């Protein structure tokens, strides 16, 4: 899977290989199966995800991309009918079928959803409340962290004069950046993004996308996207999900350069060419 970096090619997704030259597994998924009420949604998925890179999960609707993502921070626990089997190791630690501290796990693995979901609190409280809860009681340090993270997502200049206004009054793109800030504030090492741009208008989407691209190197990013163009623009690695016999599975994965330029699977080739899906 570790492709040599071919910088002579003009394709941007191949050029980017220089940013993530070596593949170091951060998340190792082996034979992961997810079922809802006994109906299999994801069948025996095996996939390694490289540290510090952006891995895009692409594929049509209903092939288990979001289910896959929600097993990585055990958010699947919220759905009582969801059964998960197989193995997911994060930094070597097995998280499936284990009694483990979900709070620690979820601080380490942040998540952004399709629909921006800031709390019905003020902009400031959206950030201060989780921080306080996780034990940062020093008010001044908290304020510094909040300013830093809001600047990181390019929101500080836009909201510094109305920090105490309701977060739900922000535009969709601003809300999504606030959610990203809220996740970054807990200093996770991994970020799961579930179609983070699909509910945004094109301009806001571009801003959020640039932001995600800027996370490369600092965070291990797994992004589910319907938007192939987006995957081409930002992904280092790509995993292609497809529905086979009624359940989703990975039909091909590899570096963005290999997958987009010379896909091995005919379905991937057709999907990328726009002929299917």
């Amino acid at each position, binding site marked *: 899977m570790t492709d040599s970096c071919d910088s002579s090619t003009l394709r941007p997704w191949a050029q980017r290989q220089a940013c993530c030259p070596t593949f170091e597994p951060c998340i190792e998924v082996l034979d992961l199966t997810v079922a809802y009420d006994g109906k299999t949604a994801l069948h025996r998925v095996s996939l390694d995800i490289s540290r510090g890179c952006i891995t895009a999960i692409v594929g049509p609707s209903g092939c288990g991309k979001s289910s896959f993502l929600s097993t990585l921070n055990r958010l699947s626990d*919220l759905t009582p009918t969801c059964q998960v089997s197989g193995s997911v190791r994060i930094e070597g630690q097995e998280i499936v079928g284990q009694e483990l501290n979900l709070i620690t796990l979820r601080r380490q693995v942040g998540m952004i959803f399709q629909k921006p979901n800031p709390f019905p609190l003020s902009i400031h409280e959206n950030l201060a409340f989780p921080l306080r809860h996780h034990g940062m009681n020093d008010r001044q340090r908290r304020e510094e962290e909040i300013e830093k993270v809001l600047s990181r997502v390019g929101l500080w200049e836009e909201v510094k004069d109305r920090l105490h206004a309701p977060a739900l009054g922000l535009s969709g793109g601003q809300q999504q950046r606030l959610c990203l800030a809220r996740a970054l504030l807990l200093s996770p090492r991994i970020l799961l993004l579930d179609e983070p741009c699909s509910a945004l208008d094109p301009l806001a989407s571009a801003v959020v996308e640039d932001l995600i691209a800027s996370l490369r190197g600092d965070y291990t990013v797994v992004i589910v996207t319907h938007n192939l163009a987006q995957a081409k623009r930002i992904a280092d690695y790509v995993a292609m999900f497809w529905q086979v016999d009624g359940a989703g599975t990975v039909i091909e994965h590899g570096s963005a350069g290999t997958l987009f330029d010379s896909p091995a699977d005919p379905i991937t080739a057709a999907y990328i060419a726009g002929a299917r899906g």
Partner: protein
Amino acid sequence: MREPASVSTMLTQRVADWRDTVATILVWSSALLITAVFLWILGDLLLRGLPHLSFEFLFDTPMDAGRAGGIASILVSTLVILLVCMTVSIPLGIGTAVLLAEFSRHNHFFGRGVRVSLDVLAGVPSIVFGLFGNAFFSLYLGMGFSILSGGLTLACMVLPLLIRSTETALRAVPDDFRRAAAALGLPAITTLWRILLPAAAPGVIAGLVLGIGRALAETAALLYTSGYVDRMPGSLLDSGRSLSIHIYDLAMNVPGAEGNASASALVLILLLLIINVLTFRLVDGWLHQRITPH
């Protein structure tokens, strides 16, 4: 063939117009009818009661079986009964609703059983609650005819309303907030207290206001439990007469007290209005305090 087509279109159009007119008249007249009934009641009360309403009426104790004097002791009893009822039913009601909405699976048999029981209880006539309160609180638990047993009986009556409205309000809070909070590693109880309950507050208040209204208006359930002694209550174990029982007594049993009955009814309606406004204000303020930092 254009003519007939357009004629039939015009006909359909005319029928539709006619239906619209009838519907408009129906909707408006029912709204007017309801408003008229309310205004009639209010006008009647104002006409008969206002001459008897005075500062002294509110702060004097009743004399000559209520023909003279005021309603001070009655007001105090009413408010204390209401206080007992709310102190018991609000925590119990919200707690049960939280259990049903957040911590039990929607189709679990336990939750289903509780919900069916609540719906049946909500429809039970208040006189039955009165009998139960009399048998259980007054006699079995030995509280006698007291404000305490009256308030507790009212709490039993109000609980189903409060639980069902709070549960519905909690269920209406989008799952997005729960998932966002879980993904941030926030425990369920923190999420509930900081996010879900404030978001559900408008629904909770609606249930609360309905419950208070029902408790204030109650007569039958209190006859057997808090009794109808019109003295100023000295403790929770004293008997006390609520406003609605006072109105009933003056109107039915005391000849020559009709004026005071109307005045008391006027006070009851004003009290309801004040409590409703106050409840909305209080919870709104609480919500605001949640949104801003501390």
